[in-house]
């Protein structure tokens, strides 16, 4: 259970990015955070991980207060939260395996990680995760040889091998094509389901958010203007979040609803149902 209370962030430039935000995310909930650019979505996620230092407010993850932790405790805290990034943020000149294992850095000592001598259990887990996302044959490829979708899957493995209690996902599909975006979102959702993981997903694609999240929080200028289920996201609400626009075509039609959660891992690129659904939604 993640509890955010009165989270405020003022940047050194004086911009007030977050104005006292309250959010509670129960275990196993996949929550999408939507809002226009500059609304503070990234800041929320980075404050939770303390990559950005909050100005005021409290954040507790399963009864541990995150704000104010010292460096050692902060490290232990960070390893309980997996993070997935917009531009994948893989270390491009390291191999896929090294990138995945870098998710264990919070658990192993410096020399162990420097010599790449990770415990066999970590390596087993890394192979298992890579197999789960269909990349185990790529383990020794360098990260910059992969395609966008493959890189994001490696990014997901890196976050999951931390064995996190919470996933923080920052615009996971921003640099992916529509089809891969869906595969990635579905993968994240499935994995959260398998592990009963809570997730906060920043996303600017409203339709994707509606398709894959159980709950949507709308952020505007550092304030929450909507918090509710995806199907309550009416044109009026979207106008409130993003401003005036014709929203009717963006909102998901009811018949697109049924998502096969148990669909096989997206290793096989030929996923015709996805394409069909994309076409239905007017995307292709």
């Amino acid at each position, binding site marked *: 259970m993640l509890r955010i209370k009165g989270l405020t962030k003022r940047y050194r430039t004086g911009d007030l990015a977050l104005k006292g935000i309250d959010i509670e995310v129960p275990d196993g909930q996949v929550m999408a955070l939507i809002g226009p650019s500059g609304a503070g979505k990234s800041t929320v996620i980075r404050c939770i*991980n303390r*990559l950005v230092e909050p100005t005021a407010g409290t954040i507790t993850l399963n009864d541990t207060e995150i704000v104010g932790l010292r460096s050692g405790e902060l*490290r*232990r*805290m*960070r*390893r*309980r*939260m*997996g*993070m997935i*990034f*917009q*531009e994948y*943020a*893989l*270390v*491009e*000149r*390291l191999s896929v395996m*090294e990138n995945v294992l*870098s*998710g*264990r*850095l*919070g*658990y192993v000592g*410096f020399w162990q*990680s*420097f010599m790449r001598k990770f415990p066999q259990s970590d390596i087993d887990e890394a192979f298992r995760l890579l197999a789960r996302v269909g990349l185990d044959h790529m383990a020794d490829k360098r990260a910059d040889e992969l395609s966008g979708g493959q890189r994001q899957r490696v*990014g997901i493995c*890196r976050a999951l091998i*931390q064995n996190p209690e919470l996933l*923080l996902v920052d615009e996971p599909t921003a640099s992916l094509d529509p089809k891969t975006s869906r595969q990635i979102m579905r993968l994240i959702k499935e994995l959260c389901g398998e592990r009963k993981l809570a997730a906060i997903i920043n996303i600017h694609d409203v339709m994707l958010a509606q398709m894959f999240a159980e709950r949507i929080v709308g952020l505007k200028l550092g304030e929450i203007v909507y918090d509710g289920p995806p199907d309550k996201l009416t044109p009026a609400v979207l106008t409130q979040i993003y401003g005036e626009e014709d929203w009717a075509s963006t909102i998901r039609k009811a018949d697109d609803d049924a998502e096969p959660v148990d669909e096989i891992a997206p290793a096989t690129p030929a996923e015709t149902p996805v394409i069909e659904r994309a076409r239905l939604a007017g995307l292709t």
Partner: protein
Amino acid sequence: MSGAIVTSKKVWQRHDRKTQLAVWAAWLFGTAVFVYCFQLISERTIWAFVWDAPAQAADLGARMVPPAWSYIHYLWRPIWDTLNIATLGTIISIVIAVPIAYCAARNTTPSVAFVRPVALFIIVASRSINSLIWALMLVTIVGPGVFAGIIAIGLRSIGFVAKLLYEAIEEIDESQVEAVRSTGASAAQTTVYGIVPQVMPAFAGITVFRWDINIRESTVLGLVGAGGIGLELNAAITQLYWTQVSLMLLVIIGTVILSEWVSAKVRHAII
């Protein structure tokens, strides 16, 4: 209507009047400075020597051929020393330059206010002083020989390597570092996983590049007594053994070309 005829032929000029004037002023100033400098140099020059120089050069050239090929047996050792000065000096400079670069880069320095200026000063100081001057100092301190040369090359290269390296560190992709940090990695682990892989190619390139330069520089360190082939060259020149001098010049050219070729090959292999 009075007959005020406006002659509106458009005049085209490359620059407007003000720029034109500035350009002319700059040229005038530059020429004046040059003429002044040259004047001062010429005051301290014995022009008779200068006019005599072509004849001297021809004479010198004639005395240099043919190179004393047999003397090459005495040169293997100085060549080996020269190579060692360059290589060991480069290794020393790397060992010292890496932490300095880490302290000088804005995104990794422990303290922008205190540590960074010190690191930057070390870099500038090392770069400003030519290796020959370093050698001059070190020969008076640790005595003549290869050791002084190695240290001189090392000290001179610190600034070069550290400067290029810290610029490379400042250019890395910060998001990769952030991603590693977000897993709960310690500062040391973040460096090894997030920063080192990103700067490694630049680092290798800089090292080889500097090694190549150091080979050139170490050929002359002997002139002030710091070992290597320069020592032999100096001796041959003072004793007027011109055929030996020409052989050494050929050897130096050969070494320099060879090292340039090696460094180009290695850099190509890295990138």
